[in-house]
C-alpha cells in the first residue's frame, strides 16, 4: 500500500518534471526572462521545513536566516529580485510530500531545506525527480548523502561526523569511563545514538546503559531508574530539545549527577526553558557554528543584522540558513535562473560563509567535517568552539 502510494508520488513528480523542462525549453527560445521559478525579472525560491509544530523553532531559525539573506540581496542595485515562499511541513514527513508537490507545481527555482532528516527522506526524491536544487541547512542523517542525488546539498557535516565526534569528545576531552546513551527512536535520534554507541565502543568507553524513549511520554522514570544505579560520567541523549528538557530535569531530580550531553537537535534556548536549572552544565554538539560571540567581522555583521531584523539573536542553524540561501543567491547573481543551471553553479560553489567554508563534495555533503560544542552556563547558551578547542567548565 505504502509502496504503491510512493510510486504514485514519484510518477506525479516525474510528470511535473516533464512540464517544468518543457517550460524551460520554450523559454530558451524566448531568450529573455528566466524559466522555472522566474517571471518578470524575479525568481522565487522556497523555504521548506517546519514553521509550526513541536520543533518548529529550528525551522524558524533557518527561514529567518534565509529572509535576511534575501533582503540583503534585493537591497543591492541591479540584481534579479528574489522572492521567498515558505512551505510549512510541521516537521512531518507525511506533510512534507504534499508540500514538496506544491513547491514543484509552484515552479520554485531552488529550495532552502528540507530542514529535518525525516522529511528530507520523503521530500528529496520529489525534488530530485523535478530537478529542483535543494540546499539543507540542518538535515544531518548520513543516509541522505548516499542516494546519488544530483540536486541535493547540505551546508553542515552529517551525523556520521557528529556521532563519532561526540563519542571522541566524551572519551578524550571529558575523560568519561562510563556513559549512558539514550535515543528518542526517531530517524535522527536513533542514527545519532547508534553512531555514538559504536564509536564509544571503539574508544574503549563502557556504555553502561542503552535506552530508547517515547518523546511524547510525560514520565521518563523507567529511564532515570536505569541510569541512576549505573552512575555514568556522561549521559548522552540523541533527540530533540523538547524531550531533552523534560529528560534532563527528571534525571537531575532522580539524583543522576553525570554530565548531560546532547546533539544539535537539543541546541535551542527552548531546551533551557524546559530543563530549567537542571539544564546548566549541559553540553550540546552541533555541526553548525554559532554566530553569537564570534570575532570575525563578517560573522559579527550577520549577527547584528539578524538581531536588528528579528529582534532576537541568531540561533541554531540561522547562520546555516543564511549561507544556504547565499549559495543559491550567488548562482542567481551569476545570471542563473533555471533550476538546473542554479544546481550546476551551487554544486561547484566555494565561498566563506558566516558558519564555515561552503564547498560541497560530489555527493552533496559538505567537504569539511567540523563539529562545534556549546555549553549551557547560567541559563544561557555559551559557544565553546570546535571540538579541538572546546574546554567545558565542569
Amino acid at each position: 500500500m505504502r509502496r504503491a502510494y510512493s510510486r504514485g508520488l514519484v510518477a506525479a513528480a516525474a510528470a511535473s518534471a516533464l512540464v517544468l523542462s518543457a517550460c524551460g525549453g520554450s523559454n530558451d527560445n524566448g531568450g529573455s526572462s528566466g524559466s522555472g521559478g522566474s517571471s518578470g525579472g524575479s525568481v522565487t525560491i522556497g523555504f521548506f521545513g517546519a514553521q509550526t509544530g513541536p520543533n518548529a523553532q529550528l525551522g524558524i531559525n533557518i527561514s529567518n536566516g534565509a529572509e535576511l539573506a534575501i533582503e540583503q540581496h534585493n537591497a543591492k542595485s541591479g540584481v534579479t529580485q528574489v522572492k521567498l515562499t515558505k512551505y510549512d511541513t510541521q516537521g512531518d514527513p507525511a506533510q512534507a510530500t504534499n508540500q514538496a508537490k506544491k513547491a514543484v507545481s509552484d515552479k520554485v527555482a531552488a529550495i532552502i531545506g528540507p530542514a529535518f532528516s525525516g522529511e528530507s527522506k520523503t521530500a528529496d526524491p520529489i525534488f530530485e525527480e523535478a530537478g529542483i536544487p535543494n540546499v539543507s541547512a540542518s538535515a544531518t542523517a548520513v543516509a541522505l548523502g548516499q542516494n546519488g542525488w544530483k540536486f541535493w546539498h547540505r551546508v553542515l557535516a552529517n551525523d556520521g561526523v557528529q556521532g563519532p565526534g561526540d563519542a571522541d569528545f566524551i572519551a578524550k576531552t571529558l575523560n568519561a569511563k562510563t556513559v549512558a546513551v539514550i535515543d528518542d527512536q526517531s530517524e535522527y535520534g536513533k542514527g545519532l545514538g547508534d553512531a555514538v554507541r559504536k564509536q564509544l565502543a571503539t574508544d574503549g568507553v563502557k556504555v553502561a546503559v542503552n535506552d530508547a524513549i517515547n518523546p511524547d511520554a510525560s514520565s521518563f522514570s523507567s529511564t532515570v531508574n536505569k541510569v541512576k544505579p549505573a552512575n555514568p560520567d556522561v549521559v548522552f541523549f540523541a533527540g530533540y530539545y523538547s524531550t531533552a528538557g523534560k529528560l534532563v530535569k527528571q534525571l537531575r531530580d532522580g539524583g543522576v549527577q553525570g554530565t548531560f550531553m546532547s546533539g544539535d537537535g537539543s541546541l535551542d534556548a527552548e531546551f533551557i526553558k524546559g530543563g530549567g536549572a537542571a539544564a546548566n552544565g549541559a553540553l550540546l554538539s552541533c555541526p553548525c557554528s554559532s554566530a553569537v560571540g564570534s570575532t570575525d567581522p563578517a560573522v559579527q555583521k550577520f549577527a547584528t543584522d539578524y538581531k536588528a531584523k528579528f529582534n532576537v539573536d541568531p540561533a541554531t542553524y540561522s547562520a546555516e540558513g543564511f549561507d544556504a540561501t547565499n549559495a543559491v543567491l550567488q548562482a542567481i547573481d551569476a545570471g542563473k535562473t533555471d533550476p538546473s543551471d542554479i544546481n550546476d553553479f551551487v554544486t561547484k560553489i566555494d565561498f566563506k560563509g558566516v558558519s564555515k567554508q561552503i564547498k560541497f563534495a560530489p555527493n552533496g555533503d559538505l567537504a569539511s567535517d567540523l563539529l562545534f560544542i556549546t555549553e549551557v552556563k547560567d541559563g544561557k547558551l555559551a559557544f565553546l568552539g570546535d571540538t579541538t578547542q572546546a574546554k567545558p567548565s565542569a
Partner: protein
Amino acid sequence: MWNDFTQQFWSSTIDGLTNGAIYGLVAMGYTLVYGVLRLINFAHSEVFMIGTFAALGALTLFGIDSPQSGLALVGVLLLMTLVAMAASGGTAVLLERVAYRPLRKRGASRLAALISAIGASFFLQEVFAIWQGRDQLSIPRVMNKDVWFNIGSGQVRNDKVLVIVAAILMMLALDRFVNTTRLGRGIRATAQDPDTAVLMGVNIDRVVLWTFLIGGILAGLAAALYGVFFELTQYNVGFLLGIKAFTAAVLGGIGNIRGALIGGLVLGLIENYGASIFGTQWLDVVAFSVLVLVLMFRPTGILGENLQRARV
C-alpha cells in the same frame, strides 16, 4: 534483564505508583461518564489538558515562580488545584451541554456521541495549539523535591507521596459520595436503568451534568498534580495520558470507581516493571500486552464490578 528488574524493583515500584495514581484520577472521569451514559468521553483528555493550562495560568497571574514551603506551599497547591478543578469542571460541563446533550435529546446513537466526543477533542486541542503555541510550556517549580528516605533503590520523594496520597484520598471521597449521598444514589440509579430512574423521580439531566462536573473536577486535580510533578504542559499533553487513563479504566473494570484507581496503579507498575526488564522502548508494548491478557481471562477487568452494583 532479571538483574535489572531486581536492581530497579523499588524505584520502579514507587515511580509506577506515582504515574499510576495520575492515570487513575483521569480514569475515574472516563469510568463515571461511561457508567452513567455508556459513552466514552474521548474529550476527557482535553478536560485534563485545560486543567494543566489553568494551573499554569494561576501561577503566572500571581507571579509565583519559585519553590515555596510551609503554609505558602499549601496555599499555592490549593490555588493550583482549585483553579484547575474549576477550569476542568467547567470544560466538562460545557462539553456536556454543547457536544452531548443536544445529541441525547434527539435520540442520536451512541456512535454519533462518540464521534462528537472525538470532534470536541480535536477542536479543543487545536484551539489551544493556536492560542498557546505548539511548543512545550514549562510550569515553574512550586515545591522543592526533597527525598525523605530510600527503600532499596527507590527514592521516597515528597512530590511523589503527594500525588499518590491525593489520588487515594480522592478515590475514597468519590466512592463515599456515590454510595452515600442522594445525588450518588441518583447516579447509581441512572447507571442501572435510566428509564426506571426517571419514573422514580430522578432528574437525569441533572445527574448527567453532575457526573461530568465530578469527572472534570477529578481531571482538574490530576492536572494540578501533573503540573507539580512534571512541571510542563502542551496542547497535546492529554493525548497519550488520556489513552493510558482509558486503558486503566478498562483494566480495572470500566464503570467501577475503585477499579479505575486500581487499574491506574496496576498499569503504572506494569509499565515500569516491563521497561526495567525489556528497556523503555518496550514500555507501551508490555503495558498493552498485559491489558489484552487480563481482558482475555477477565473480560470485565480486574474488579469487574459495574457502577450500578457498587456497594459500600
